[in-house]
């Protein structure tokens, strides 16, 4: 399966000839939040929901064909990644006020980042993809899920909010499962232990029990 960024590029490429800039952002956001983890046949209902005007509805089949063609195109023919639109919409709506992260969320970010930097870029993308595919199991509110999804995709953006410890624990566990999937459980154990050791000092400094995340 193509990774999320590549598929987003394909969707963007397919939609570009038909949608205006103002129509594009919500369409991409909708795809990411509701359709990115669904099978290909769900594209038809995605296109239906994108066609908000009569003019677009008339060329619905054309849009769908363009999307399918783009998804099957080689990477070199796709437009560059527009970036995730999910968080941007919600953040701009909320005025993007800065959130003061507590110790557990800060250490979670440090630990996750450590885990990702220990693997190659391809695997990192696959791990993030795996986590995004399984985010639904965490039963977060759609707003939290969307903003978290956005953070996982563009990790340079601000962490959306302070999550509960159990959520963070499950996210680390998803990370571990993905590591098992791509490297096998023996290396996954090793990487987890290395990442744990690397952020231990920071956790102590912030008076947080790192193993609460594990």
């Amino acid at each position, binding site marked *: 399966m193509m990774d999320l960024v590549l598929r987003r590029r394909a969707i963007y490429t397919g939609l570009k000839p038909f949608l205006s800039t103002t129509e594009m952002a919500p369409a991409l956001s909708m795809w990411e939040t509701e359709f990115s983890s669904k099978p290909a046949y769900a594209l038809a209902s995605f296109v239906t929901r994108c066609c908000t005007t009569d003019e677009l509805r008339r060329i619905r089949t054309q849009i769908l064909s363009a999307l399918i063609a783009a998804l099957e195109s080689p990477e070199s023919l796709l437009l560059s990644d527009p970036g995730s639109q999910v968080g941007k919409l919600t953040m701009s709506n909320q005025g993007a006020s800065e959130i003061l992260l507590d110790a557990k969320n800060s250490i979670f970010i440090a630990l996750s980042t450590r885990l990702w930097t220990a693997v190659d870029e391809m695997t990192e993308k696959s791990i993030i993809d795996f986590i995004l595919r399984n985010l639904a199991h965490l039963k977060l509110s759609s707003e939290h899920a969307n903003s978290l999804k956005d953070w996982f995709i563009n990790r340079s953006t601000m962490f959306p909010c302070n999550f509960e*410890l159990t959520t963070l*624990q*499950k996210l680390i*566990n998803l990370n*571990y*499962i993905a*590591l*098992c*999937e*791509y*490297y*096998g*459980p*023996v290396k*996954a*154990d*090793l990487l*987890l*232990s290395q990442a*744990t050791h690397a952020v231990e000092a920071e956790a102590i400094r912030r008076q947080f*029990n790192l*193993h*609460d995340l*594990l």
Partner: protein
Amino acid sequence: MQRMTRQLILSSTLALLTPSAALAGAVGGAVSQPAASTIAINSVWVVLAGALVFLMQAGFAMLETGMSRSKNAVNIMMKNYMDLCVGTVLFWLLGYGLMFGFNPTGWLGTDHFAPSDGGDWEFTLLFFHIMFASTAATIVSGAMAERTNYLSYLFGAIGITAIIYPVLGSWIWNSNGWLKQMGFIDFAGSTVVHSLGGWCALAGVILLGPRLGRFSETGTIHNIPGHNVGMLGLGGFILWFGWFGFNAGSTLEASTNIGLIALNTQLSGAMGAISALLISVVLRKPILISSTVNGSIAGLVAITAGCATMDASYAALTGFIGGIISVLGVQLLEKIRIDDVVGAISVHGFAGVWGTLAAGIFLKGNMFNGDQIIVQLIGISATFIWVFFAALIMYGLIKITFGLRVSTMHEQRGLDITEHGEIAYPEFTHNAAYKTEHLPHLQKL
């Protein structure tokens, strides 16, 4: 085992007439009371053999622990320790009666539950058979290692020792058992004990699914090596040692053929290891200690059915083929994405089938008899149908009610921590994510 049921029934019948008569054995068709010294010698031998079979539990525990990751070492040890304990009590309470009680239909024993009175000889037999029942149950633990809920596993062990094993045993080892009546040969339990363990393990691992990351979505197979090859090797030696009690003790008397049985056992085990090594070379695979030890155990499993009724050269051949089956079986299961941590299904299930068939093919004085081979095939098939589906239903019920598999968080931490609150090697965890000092502060799952 051939003589055992006859002796048991006779001694039980005599015990009803007079308590001291339970000491009586059977000689030919006539009932006579052997000298007390003969019974004493037989008892010494059978009890000693039972103690050797007990030692096999230690062998299984070490072998399985060595083949698992260190974060699950306590869990495997505990499973082997406790399935012996619950198996002992359940077989005494229920299993023994179902297996060796009065069996008018040929399908099930109906008395002798929780025996507390009777003859000395009956107690000797009960002791010996408790060890067999526990062996059958413990085979499963290795296959289901590293992801099974501890209590659910023990419920499974109870089901095996209380129902699945004794029902099968009543068909094959009870003198009125329908397979016994057909002439099915399984002297010491290639089918009754080992195939049974293998098929229960197969049902269990199918319902459990593989360990995290063992078989990835992309099709990659990740090897998960055990943490202690020394323990694995020593476990193999101890199992082999115990096997002399398992096979030679099944004479249930200090008889003159013990030497041949022990020799056949030794030859078959040795040939199993040699053939496992050779097949690894032929297939250009590394010569692993796990496949070598498993090869010897497969040889021992294979000869268990025919160790008393086979010439030494055929015993060697039986073991040789058993070793090859164990290696190929492991590869087959891997191909179909079945995660058996220690190779128990291949070693006990597949090699047990081969051994049972070989007992019919190489039957001394009646070799290659088609009728005998058909009887063996009927027994093998009936065993698979009963054991596999009974175990599937049992583990299915456990899965629905208590849950069979632990959560992914448990697998991440390791079952030693989540199921037992212990770490197997607290002084050697410098590079581990979880150390002893973290245990009191870990969040409850």
